[in-house]
């Protein structure tokens, strides 16, 4: 389970301190968001999830003065950044093929000594990964941004540069596909959505 450690009431003061260059404030912001960001880029198949995560936080440092809003808006902003960074990384790597992503991710996940690992049994985890990977790219983005980033429909739409209506349609179709796979139902007439 990813760590959700919102800064809470102290967010404004932490943000101001971060803008002033206080290292402790950056530590707080990093700890509150890094697990989710890292989880998202891993789930999204980044070949170097930690590298992408690091780039996201460095960009965050450089652009912090451009942000205006509350903590929820800040989280959304960071995930928009993470999503775009991820796409850039995937695009760049597709032009220069490297080692397959999945084995590297798997080896990281299965490294011994992961004391705080929250992995469900390997079979179910592999099944979930297969289900997610079988979705279309857009469906995968919607589900993962909403799950890891905890973005609203509108925030997800902005991140993906789509209309909210399109995001709603994507998430509905994605969950229907997931449900069919999980429950192994006959798709014809089993689900009717609003």
């Amino acid at each position, binding site marked *: *389970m*990813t*760590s959700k450690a919102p800064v809470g009431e102290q967010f404004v003061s932490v943000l101001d301190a971060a803008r002033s*260059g206080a*290292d402790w404030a*950056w530590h707080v912001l*990093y700890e509150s968001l*890094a*697990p989710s960001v*890292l*989880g998202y880029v*891993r*789930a999204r198949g980044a070949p170097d999830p*930690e590298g992408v*995560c*690091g780039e996201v*936080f*460095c960009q965050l*440092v*450089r*652009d912090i*003065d*451009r*942000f*205006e809003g509350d903590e929820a*808006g800040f989280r*959304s*902003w960071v995930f*928009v950044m993470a999503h775009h960074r991820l796409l850039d990384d995937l695009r760049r790597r597709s032009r220069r093929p490297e080692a397959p992503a999945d084995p590297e991710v798997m080896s990281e996940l299965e490294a011994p000594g992961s004391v*705080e*690992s*929250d*992995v*469900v049994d390997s079979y*179910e*985890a*592999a099944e979930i*990964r297969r289900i*997610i990977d079988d979705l279309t790219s857009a469906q995968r983005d919607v*589900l993962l941004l*909403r*799950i*890891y980033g905890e973005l609203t429909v*509108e925030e997800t*739409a*902005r991140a993906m540069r789509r209309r*909210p209506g399109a995001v*709603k349609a994507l998430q*509905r179709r994605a*969950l229907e596909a*997931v*449900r069919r796979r*999980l*429950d192994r*139902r006959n798709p014809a*007439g*089993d*689900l*009717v959505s*609003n």
Partner: protein
Amino acid sequence: MRDRLTPEDIDRILSGSAEGDARIGSLGSLGSFARRVRGAWGAAEPSLEVRDRHLRAMVQAVGTGPSRVRGPILARPSRVRTAVATTCFVAAGAALAAAGSLGPAQHFVADTVGQVGLDLPGRSGEPAAGGHDAPQGEAGKVRAAENRQDALEFTDAKKEWTACVAEKAEANGDDDDGFDPEADPPEGCGPKPGPLQFRDDVTANAPRTANPAGKIPGAEDVGEDDDEDGPLTGQGAEGQQNGEGKRGRGRQGGDDDG
């Protein structure tokens, strides 16, 4: 039986709050879907090594990022910042010009500042930096040294005056955008220093030259009543308003068409 997946159901499923919900439970395994997704990729906590690496990179970015504002000068309102930046620019240019170190720009600068009585090496029409009779370079070196001293004294005085104006402005809470070099200086700072004040010639109006015969070809006498803010003092530079206003702080993302 037809199962319906409402938008509210979807929101609860994706937020992870649907687990155990009887309503969602009727829709199969979706109730625990969010938790299982997060678990499928293992512990997402960065390792200590990765965390340290990321934090070190962030600290470095803090120190070098363009948005980092450090130091009392840069933290002051834009009007003050403009005044200080302009003075530094003027001081640097004056010192370089006095030393004859402006390279190709030396002729231009020497010609233009000559109109306000400052005589710098490199003016157009001069046969050599050393002047008329003196050995090549010697008189010019002397003159350059004297000019350099004058320029330094002038820039020091200008800096002090500018700092005084800035402090008065800050004390008065006057932080409106833009710096008006033509505005009357606040009380207590005195008149704006001009380059001619630092000339120790008997005839202050005459341009200093190693040529005892007087005028440099092409030069014009400039009286003290003329505008002291010749190009050297930055009429062009001080007149350039630093267009920096409030930083844009727009929110990331496009239009909210939700």
